[in-house]
C-alpha cells in the first residue's frame, strides 16, 4: 500500500489543498473537533470524531435553493445553483463514511436532488481508520468495520506512517494527485494495529448490540410498543440528536424575505420538533412520544423497509455523547427489542 510518514502530514495537506479545497478535522479552542477548511499550519485533530458529522459537506444545515424577485404581479425565478468546487474531506471515520451511502439512498433516488448531487460529485471522501474507538461506538452493530472504512479512499495509521488506498476511481484520482509524496510501504505493522483495533472493538461495551430483531418487518410490533411512553418522557424535544446525527436528513423549506427579494432556503428539520409535521390542516404527531417514536422507527424500521434492510444508523455514538438527557438509540433498542 502507498504510505506517507505521519510527520509529513503537513506536506500532504499542503499538496492536496494546492489543487482542491481541503477539509480536515481539527481541534477547536474548547478542545472539541470540527471540520475546518485547511490552512497552513493546521493540525489534524487527535480526537476520535467531530462533534458535528461530516454530512454538512453534502447536505448543509441551511442552503439557498432558489431566489425570487417580485414585481407587481410578476415573479422572476432566479436559479442560484452554481457548480460546486472540487473538495476533499480528509479523515472521515468509518461511521461517517457509511453515512454518505445512506444519504445517497435518499437524495440520489429519483427525482435526484441536484443540490446534493452537485456537491457529492465534486467531493472526495478520504476516510481514516479508527485506532482508539470510544465506549459510545457501535458501528459494528451496523456491519461497519472501524478499522476498514469506506469512502472514495481510505487511510490507515500504524503509528508511524499513514497508508492510503483507493476504493474507486475518484479515490484513485485523489491518490494520483498526491502520488509524488507517497511511496510503497510495508503493511505488516499496520495489520497488527488493525488487528488490535478490532480486538478493542470487540471489547467495547456496546459490541454485542445487534440489529437482528429490527427491520422493516417489525413495523406494527414496535410502533405499538408500550415502551415509547417511558422512553420519551424525559425527552426535551430539542434537535441535538438529529443535528449531530450523520444520517438524519429531514429538512424544511422556507422563504426568507430579504427586503429586496425572496430567498427560498432549505434547512435541517428535526422530527423531535413539535412543528415537524405541522400543516395548515393540523398535525398528525402532537405528542413528544409520537415524535420521539418517529425518529427511532425511521432508523430501525422504516428505512430498512424501503432500503433492502439497510438501517438508518451508523453507530457513530454522537447522540450517546450529546443528548442533554442521555436518551439514545442504544437505550431505545435495548428497551424495545423483542427477541
Amino acid at each position, binding site marked *: 500500500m502507498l504510505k506517507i510518514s505521519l510527520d509529513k502530514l503537513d506536506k500532504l495537506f499542503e499538496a492536496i489543498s494546492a489543487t482542491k479545497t481541503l477539509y480536515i478535522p481539527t481541534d477547536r479552542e474548547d478542545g472539541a473537533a470540527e471540520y475546518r477548511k485547511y490552512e497552513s499550519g493546521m493540525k489534524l485533530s487527535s480526537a476520535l470524531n467531530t462533534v458535528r458529522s461530516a454530512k454538512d459537506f453534502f447536505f448543509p444545515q441551511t442552503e439557498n435553493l432558489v431566489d425570487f424577485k417580485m414585481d407587481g404581479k410578476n415573479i422572476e425565478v432566479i436559479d442560484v445553483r452554481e457548480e460546486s468546487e472540487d473538495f476533499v474531506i480528509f479523515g472521515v471515520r468509518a461511521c461517517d463514511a457509511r453515512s454518505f451511502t445512506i444519504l445517497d439512498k435518499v437524495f440520489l433516488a429519483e427525482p435526484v436532488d441536484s443540490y446534493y448531487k452537485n456537491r457529492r460529485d465534486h467531493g472526495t471522501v478520504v476516510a481514516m481508520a479508527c485506532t482508539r474507538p470510544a465506549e459510545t461506538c457501535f458501528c459494528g452493530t451496523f456491519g461497519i468495520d472501524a478499522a476498514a472504512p469506506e469512502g472514495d479512499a481510505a487511510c490507515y495509521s500504524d503509528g508511524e506512517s499513514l497508508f492510503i488506498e483507493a476504493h474507486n476511481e475518484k479515490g484513485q484520482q485523489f491518490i494520483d494527485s498526491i502520488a509524488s509524496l507517497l511511496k510503497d510501504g510495508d503493511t505488516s505493522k499496520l495489520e497488527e494495529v488493525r488487528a488490535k483495533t478490532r480486538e478493542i472493538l470487540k471489547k467495547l461495551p456496546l459490541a454485542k448490540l445487534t440489529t437482528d430483531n429490527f427491520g422493516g418487518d417489525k413495523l406494527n410490533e414496535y410502533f405499538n410498543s408500550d415502551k415509547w411512553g417511558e422512553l420519551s418522557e424525559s425527552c426535551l424535544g430539542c434537535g441535538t440528536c438529529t443535528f449531530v446525527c450523520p444520517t438524519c436528513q429531514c429538512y424544511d423549506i422556507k422563504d426568507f424575505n430579504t*427586503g429586496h427579494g425572496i*430567498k427560498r432556503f432549505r434547512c435541517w428539520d428535526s422530527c423531535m420538533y413539535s412543528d415537524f409535521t405541522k400543516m395548515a390542516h393540523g398535525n398528525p404527531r402532537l405528542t413528544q412520544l409520537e415524535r420521539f417514536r418517529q425518529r427511532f422507527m425511521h432508523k430501525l424500521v422504516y428505512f430498512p423497509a424501503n432500503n433492502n434492510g439497510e438501517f438508518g444508523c451508523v453507530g457513530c455514538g454522537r447522540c450517546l455523547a450529546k443528548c442533554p438527557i442521555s436518551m439514545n438509540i442504544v437505550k431505545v433498542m435495548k428497551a424495545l427489542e423483542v427477541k
Partner: protein
Amino acid sequence: MQVNENKEFQPLIVAFCCNWCSYAGADLAGTNRLNYPDNIKIIRVPCSCRVNPMFILRAFQRGADGVILCGCHPGDCHYTSGNYFTRRRMTLLFSMLDFLGIERDRTRVEWVSAAEGAKFAATMNEFTEAVKKLGPNRRLEDLRCRKQ
C-alpha cells in the same frame, strides 16, 4: 441607500418614537422647520415601552446602522410608568450588546417631550453624526439582507 454627492456614508437610522411625547416632538420639529437628516426614519409606537428588544435587533439584522428610541421624560409618561420600564429594558439590552462587542453608539435612548422640537432635531443631528462616525453596521446585519 441614500446617495450623497460626496459619497459620504449615509447611515440608515430607525427612530422609535412614543406617540405622546417624542412623536409630537418630531412633529413640532417639523412645524418649526428644524432640519435634521433624512437618514432618520420614524416608527410611531404608543409608548416607548412598546418597543421590544427584538424590534431593535430586527432593525440591525435588516441593515439599520443605528437605532434610537425616544420617549417621554421619566415621570411624564402618558401611561405613567412605561418609560421607566423602557429605561430598565434598554439599559440591560444595550449593556448586553456592548458585552457582545457591538458598537455602543449605535443604540441610544433619549427623552424628548412634545414641546422639545428643537431637542428632537438636535438629538437626531447628533445621533446621525455619531453613527456616521461608526460606519456601516457590520456586526449585527444579516448578510442575506445586504443590498446588492
